[in-house]
């Protein structure tokens, strides 16, 4: 039997994770989500949605600071650490630790985005003591034994090697590098063969010591657990972590979107196309206006302008869309499409045309009403499983949105007016800045001359 379970914490591309966390998974309805603020004896704060329907607990944690802080030459450090924390810790070697997890059906995992390092635990509530203990061991006493480090390094290198041939990955990397030539956001979050080869067990140990400070920690829990018990277990897992992680600074950055087109030749039948221009950070006062605008432009599934013009009317692509990326220190509007090499030029022309049409302030009252109806009406749908809710609890705290955000969020969407979106479209959307990367053998499309 294959049970269909939505896995919530998979790693896709660092960029998309950012996108999903920051913009798309805005959470569910007030009625169903009663968030309690729990403060443990040691003073650690956790947000809890108590739900005793199933004997399950989903925990999600984050430490502020992600792969953007990997040292130069050691790109991929956060990502590599995320794969190694559960490969031997405390009194257990790698196989011993994995056996314990498997025998107790505890799902433990870690992942890194550009701006944060995440952990997640799903456990039957009867095994909660062990689950939190194993989490503690993974965070405070991971071994980084030579066998495990070499094995995981081999896996990461294998993945990197293969991704060097993957048109989507190449396109995403090239565009990222182009937009942020002098900022850590422009570096590959999963590293390069050279940087992964350069990472040592000492680097990994320093990473753990420097980054997992209680002052950077954010905790969200959902399920079959009472507030007091959660406080006790949170202390068991985290109280012994250092009070403070190392400090860091990351500069604010404006994406270098020059309107360039970059073509990388690759012998594939379908070209991968990605494009971006500057967006807004999550805390920008116009963020909700952009959120609604982006929905109409390219994020609104089967109703967006790009979907309708590029796919529905012309059959140019199977997939096309845009998303918002809201990093801590910059924002982007990011889009992608894939089409046969012969039709890349036409696809790009239509995308640019739609970008320009939107930038001209052409949103109609009916279009806006539909977008708001969807965005507010679908709000409830995001809260469909414990781990997704736990993810949201952490996301709200990372973005400093407040414990009452869920009650207020639809109000922010409702408040966006037709004037707002058209004014923002005219000032923010810049077709001439839209920077494009094509990977494939596109007919009649060449890299633009550097400006």
């Amino acid at each position, binding site marked *: *039997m294959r049970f269909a379970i939505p896995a919530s914490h998979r790693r896709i591309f660092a960029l998309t994770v950012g996108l999903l966390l920051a913009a798309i998974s805005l959470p569910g309805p007030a009625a169903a989500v009663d968030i309690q603020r729990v403060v443990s004896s040691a003073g650690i704060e956790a947000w809890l949605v108590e739900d005793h329907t*199933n004997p399950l607990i989903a925990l999600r944690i984050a430490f502020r600071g992600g792969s953007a802080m990997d040292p130069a030459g050691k790109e991929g450090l956060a990502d590599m650490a995320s794969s190694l924390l559960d490969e031997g810790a405390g009194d257990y070697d790698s196989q011993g630790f994995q056996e314990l997890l498997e025998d107790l059906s505890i799902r433990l995992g870690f992942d890194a985005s550009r701006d944060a390092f995440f952990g997640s635990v799903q456990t039957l509530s009867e095994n909660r003591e062990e689950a939190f203990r194993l989490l503690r061991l993974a965070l405070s006493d991971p071994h980084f034994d030579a066998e495990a480090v070499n094995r995981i390094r081999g896996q990461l290198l294998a993945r990197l090697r293969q991704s060097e041939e993957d048109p989507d990955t190449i396109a995403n990397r090239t565009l990222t590098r182009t937009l942020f030539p002098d900022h850590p956001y422009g570096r590959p979050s999963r590293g390069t063969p050279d940087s992964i080869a350069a990472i040592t067990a000492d680097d990994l140990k320093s990473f753990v010591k420097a980054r997992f400070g209680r002052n950077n920690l954010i905790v969200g829990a959902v399920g079959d657990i009472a507030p007091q018990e959660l406080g006790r277990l949170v202390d068991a897992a985290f109280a012994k972590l250092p009070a403070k992680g190392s400090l860091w600074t990351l500069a604010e950055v404006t994406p270098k979107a020059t309107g360039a087109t970059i073509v990388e030749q690759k012998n594939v039948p379908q070209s991968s196309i990605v494009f971006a221009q500057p967006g807004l950070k999550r805390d920008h006062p116009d963020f909700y206006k952009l959120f609604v605008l982006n929905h109409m432009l390219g994020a609104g599934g*089967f109703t967006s302008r790009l979907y309708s013009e590029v796919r529905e009317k012309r059959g140019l692509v199977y997939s096309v869309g845009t998303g918002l990326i809201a990093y801590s220190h910059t924002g982007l509007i990011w889009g992608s499409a894939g089409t046969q090499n012969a039709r890349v030029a036409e696809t790009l022309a239509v995308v640019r045309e739609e970008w320009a049409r939107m930038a001209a302030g052409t949103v109609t009252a009916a279009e806006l009403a539909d977008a708001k109806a969807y965005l507010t009406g*679908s709000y*409830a749908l995001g809260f469909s*499983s414990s781990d997704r809710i736990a993810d949201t609890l952490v996301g709200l705290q990372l973005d400093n949105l407040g414990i009452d955000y869920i009650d207020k969020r639809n109000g922010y969407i409702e408040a966006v007016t037709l004037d707002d979106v058209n004014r923002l479209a005219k000032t923010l959307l810049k077709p001439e800045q839209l920077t494009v990367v094509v990977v494939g053998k596109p007919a009649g499309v060449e890299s633009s001359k550097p400006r």
Partner: protein
Amino acid sequence: MAQLKRRNPCGWILLAAVVGWAVATASADAAVFNPETFTLANGMQVVVVPNKRVPVVTHMVWYKVGGADEEPGKSGIAHFLEHLMFKGTPSHPDGEFSKLVARNGGRENAFTSHDYTAYHQTVAKDRLALVMELEADRMTNLIINQENVDTERQVVLEERRMRTDNEPSSILSEQASAAAYLNHPYGRPVIGWEHEIRALTLEQILAFHKRWYAPNNAILVVAGDITAAELKPMAEKYYGVIPRGDVPERFRPSEPPQRAAREVTLRDARVRQPMLSRSFLAPSYIDGETPHAYPLEVLAEILGGGATSRIYRSLVVEQGIATSAGARYSPDNFGPSRFAFYASPRPDSSMEAIEAAIQAEIDRVVAEGVSDEEVTRAKQRLTASAVFARDSLGGGARTLGAALASGQTVADVEAWPERIAAVSRVQVEAAARAVFHPETSVTSRLLRAGNPTSGQ
């Protein structure tokens, strides 16, 4: 079996959905989803999976028809039809379906496999009637024109390029399936062969719709904040009024005995990480020597289920010759299944070395069997998390829908933990001996062009 999602406005969403099909496990001391079920007078089966977390429902209609039910020469027609189902009906023309769902805060999609085609929407509970009306409408009133077909054909061909032609591993996997099934239609890709997708006509697609889309060939599954008592009058109102169709029996030519091992090799300049896979034809819950199905699930867990499985431990951890390795087996198909091993060599190793190591594990399990402890632990892992499966809103609907559309019953799904728990060591060993015959294997090799066997 491969499953295609119809609409993927953004490739990222698709990735998320694909990994969403994780193999999970269930608790032996309880049934899994505790659904309620009834059947309408016209033969449409209805399943209700209660989940009261949020005032939301997932509404799915599953048709017992998929890629393996297509006539020879018309591969891809089930999936192509699924795309065209969004085009319109007389009462809701011109793509109004998706607009209405979105305007009501709903999310929707559809997917096609070899065994079924499913359409689903997730909406606030008070919008359920709307999506039921829309879904019932397009079951019988679909209108499509030549322009719809011509344009959507381009979209489907782009989908094929994206999924298959752009990915050497997908090309190989398509070829390996064709090699594994000589006679059974699982040898054809769900998305279809390109030349046959290009040749499908409007008339053929409409005829396929008329033949297979009928209430007596469909299953309604609703999960969420609703009871059977609440759903029944609505199901009768929207679906109960649709007359039964004259739906044919599913005809699936069966496999002749496999008498020679088959090998498929793809050399492609785009391959940087070689891969090896060896699969054996195996029974499913429904097809072949079905008593072996549950023991084979336990066996797959022992051999290749995770970081402590025999294959991973041996090839990746102890010998250090593979970057990844495992086994997989899924008996959910209506037709014959496969038990597969896979591994990818480290740069300082070779395809020959990992092939020999995999075969050694296969030979060992056939000759020496498994231990009682391995069986106990595998069963416990498998059965431990029906609880996890119960947690999500859509998971139960998907699992039940897929099972019912592939020939199982609600009782089968609910009894799964019990049946896994009842598997004995002797049954696991018998299943291994029954399936792992060299002559019933297909070995596929993904290699970098110009560098035939090295791991680099």
